[in-house]
């Protein structure tokens, strides 16, 4: 980040308080019961009762991990004095999980933006090297606008491959939508046609998990927390009964429902951002020496395929459950 931007992103205790309040807005049991009425339901760890579905003997469950917004290359001691170590700590924490996930998904902004194409490639390559230390070797990546908007994804593709794709895993169809390579923050007609064609091969009751970087819905358009043509993707997804979306970009947990589709934003791994529209200007929440790494972390998702249910467990950077 440029020095002037760091200066502009000043410190305000008020932001910390807002983040704290936001982090405390956990979904309670009643919310869960309401959610259970939707096609794809979620639950938070702690009341699954009989333990992880991924451990079920019937092979109906599996676990995956979502990491997001690692912003490798960011420097700003007042925001994150451990900018070079945070991702590595999270990787160690994932490696220490009692049950290892089947795969790990990175939902964009692997790197912090740079106007230097060469430096962008260097940062992307470094992320690939660092994440290679994960025990789990099935790693899936997608870009954020910091990785891809300045060169329409060219460097990302060189290092990691396609920016949008689909794959199947144990009865779940996963779709990775790129809403960042177009600097306008759009998916674009060509990719929407690809999405329509991909969905047309799925049963209406298929278990579908979507990964994006930006939210597909208008969470906070004035803060760039939206996808300009996201409604077109949601329209395509709406006719499928069991769809859930995991995304990044906003550097905090956030839960919304559009129609019957649940949307879950993930924590980041470099700096938290304030709750939508909670402050006049979007700026990183400053580092709190009393609570280091506050607001940073990752999540695991425990999938119960037959019931189209997903158990979310949120972790701090060092693997502590939230």
């Amino acid at each position, binding site marked *: *980040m*440029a020095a*002037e*931007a760091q200066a*502009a*992103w000043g410190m305000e205790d008020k932001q910390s308080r807002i983040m704290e309040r936001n982090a405390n807005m956990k979904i309670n049991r009643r919310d869960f019961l309401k959610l259970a009425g939707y096609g794809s339901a979620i639950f938070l760890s702690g009341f699954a009762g009989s333990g992880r579905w991924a451990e079920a003997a019937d092979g109906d469950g599996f676990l995956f991990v979502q990491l997001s917004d690692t912003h490798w290359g960011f420097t700003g001691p007042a925001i994150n004095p451990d900018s070079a170590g945070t991702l590595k700590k999270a990787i160690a924490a994932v490696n220490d999980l009692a049950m290892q996930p089947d795969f790990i998904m990175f939902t964009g902004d692997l790197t912090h*933006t*740079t*106007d230097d194409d060469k430096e962008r490639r260097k940062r992307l390559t470094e992320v690939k090297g660092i994440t290679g230390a994960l025990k789990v070797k099935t790693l899936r990546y997608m870009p954020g*606008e910091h990785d891809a*908007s*300045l060169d329409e994804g060219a460097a990302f593709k060189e290092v990691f491959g396609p920016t949008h794709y689909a794959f199947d895993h144990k009865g779940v169809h996963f779709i990775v939508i790129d809403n*960042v390579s177009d*600097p*306008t*923050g759009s998916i674009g007609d060509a990719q929407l046609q690809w999405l329509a064609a991909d969905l047309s091969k799925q049963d209406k009751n298929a278990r579908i998990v979507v990964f994006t970087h930006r939210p597909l819905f208008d969470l906070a*358009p*004035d803060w*760039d927390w939206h996808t300009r043509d996201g409604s077109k993707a949601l329209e395509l997804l709406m006719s499928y009964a069991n769809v859930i979306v995991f995304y990044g970009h906003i550097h905090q947990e956030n839960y919304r429902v559009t129609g019957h589709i649940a949307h879950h934003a993930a924590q980041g791994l470099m700096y938290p951002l304030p709750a939508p529209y909670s402050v006049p200007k*979007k700026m990183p929440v400053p580092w709190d020496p009393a609570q280091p790494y506050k607001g940073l972390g990752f999540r695991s998702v425990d999938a119960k395929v037959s019931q189209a249910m997903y158990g979310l467990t949120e972790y701090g950077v060092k693997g502590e459950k939230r």
Partner: protein
Amino acid sequence: MPIAVLAVLLFFLGVFLTEVCAIADEAEQVVTVTAKRYEYNPNTITVKKGIPVVLEFTSLDRLHGFSCPGLAIRTDIAPGKVATLRFVPQKAGTFPFHCDNFCGSGHEGMTGTIVVTE
């Protein structure tokens, strides 16, 4: 025609032309704005309430955007062509605007304000 009558007619013609010019001046407020990494010039745009405004944007480098949510106006600003926005400000105040097409490391700081006066 008596000179006195001619003088009166010329007087009223002068008054009429002055009014027409004044109306033309207030009929449209045209502001030219350039955009480049990571600034608008000018970045403070002052206009009058109730008078139509024409904003003419030109990019000096790459694709930028202009979004002013408080006035519900936005446009893409692509290099090589003028992007025009027309609106009539209906309320006085200060309305922030920003670039909404990701343009680089200083993108978050590419901002400005429209000041609408009474």
